[in-house]
């Protein structure tokens, strides 16, 4: 049996990869809204939140670098899809088309995914305050302050669109909620090493985190007339274990293009 410190080491790295990869791809999808958000103030807000989020991914990769996993930049850019631990819901495209050619992105899906994920992240970050890994607890304190504004922003959009009474807005939001929930369990999954991550006191269990998320999101949904239990699933599999979609492959191809053109270049 592996000794305790190597078990702890594996658990810390697994969790850090999950946190880093989640924020990294989430930020990338956010960046694809640049110039396309519904109005100019929203363009600024989305970009600013996206930049903060990339900063969060960077600090998680930085913690991995300090643990000897390699350079943070390389960890972000130079790992194939099957090595990524992000939840599948975060990698899915913003909508049909592509950024360069006729992007027909779905703002309702963006709002739902962003609100649900930001709320889930806030609950995880809260839990990380008492993480047994001190550097992670320190980072959590900082991330939490920035997240405060992100959460306020996405909650406002979520409630306004669903409570607008506007037929198209409400029906598109409902469709987006259904789509997002089908894979949203993946955000709470701690993957195949989940047991040791929890045993080592790094973060609370999937079940506890999900319950807390439910307790916060349910009243918001009820406030806009959506009652009933929230059922989450992992329809397309568990990204924590390296299962991913073609959407991630394509995203990595695009975002790594410059990096891959000269891996030794310094920026």
């Amino acid at each position, binding site marked *: 049996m592996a000794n305790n410190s190597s078990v702890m080491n594996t658990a810390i790295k697994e969790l850090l990869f999950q946190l880093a990869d989640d924020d990294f791809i989430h930020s990338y999808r956010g960046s694809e809204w640049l110039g396309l958000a519904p109005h100019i103030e929203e363009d600024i807000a989305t970009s600013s939140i996206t930049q*903060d989020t990339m*900063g969060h991914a960077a*600090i998680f990769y930085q913690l991995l670098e300090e643990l000897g996993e390699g350079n943070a930049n390389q960890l972000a850019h130079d790992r194939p899809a099957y090595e990524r631990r992000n939840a599948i819901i975060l990698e899915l495209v913003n909508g049909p088309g592509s950024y360069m050619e006729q992007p027909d992105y779905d703002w309702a899906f963006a709002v739902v995914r962003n609100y649900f994920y930001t709320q889930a992240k806030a609950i995880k970050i809260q839990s990380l305050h008492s993480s047994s890994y001190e550097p992670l607890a320190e980072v959590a*304190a900082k*991330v939490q*302050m920035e997240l405060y504004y992100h959460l306020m922003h996405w909650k406002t959009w979520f409630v306004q669109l669903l409570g607008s009474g506007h037929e198209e807005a409400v029906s598109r939001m409902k469709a987006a909620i259904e789509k997002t929930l089908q894979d949203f369990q993946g955000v709470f999954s701690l993957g195949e090493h989940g047991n040791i991550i929890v045993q080592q006191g790094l973060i609370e269990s999937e079940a506890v985190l999900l319950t807390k998320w439910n307790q916060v999101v349910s009243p918001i949904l009820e406030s806009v007339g959506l009652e009933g239990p929230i059922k989450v699933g992992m329809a397309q599999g568990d990204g924590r274990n390296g299962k991913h979609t073609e959407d991630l492959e394509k995203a990595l191809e695009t975002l790594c293009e410059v990096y891959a053109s000269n891996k030794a270049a310094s920026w």
Partner: protein
Amino acid sequence: MSTVLITSEEIYKLLENVKDPEISTVSILDLGMVENVEILGSDVSVKILPTFLGCPALPIIQKNVETAVKQLSSVEGVSVEFLRSPSWTSDRITEKGKAGLKVFGISPPPRQLKEDGSWHIDCPYCESTYVTMENIFGPTACRSILYCKSCKNPFEAMKPMIKFM
């Protein structure tokens, strides 16, 4: 070999010249970013708190600190480190820093939020309290966009970053 004693006062004096790359009227000292200066013989180590984790100005600040400290001929090595803890909060901005922000057309952050999470700031130009928030998010991670209904000027404000958030 002769040794010249480097004092932390000298280093702090030099750091006054390191301005925020995006706000030329405030230094990193005014912003409360410098947590500690350590001097070991002819080596100087400066510990800095990042304002926002994703702030693209951080590498520029690091370089500018190195350049500034090296101006002292008795300094041989400079290391700049960004600390994870404690977290930078907006109440670290000094009175001089607040004045510098206003000169640049940026309202300093409020000391605290009201119970409902709202906050209050005045116009940096005319001091009017009759202002509206246009966007919590602004041109940089740390700034919001507002509009003064009195003097009809758009202006910016530093976002409050407070521990309990």
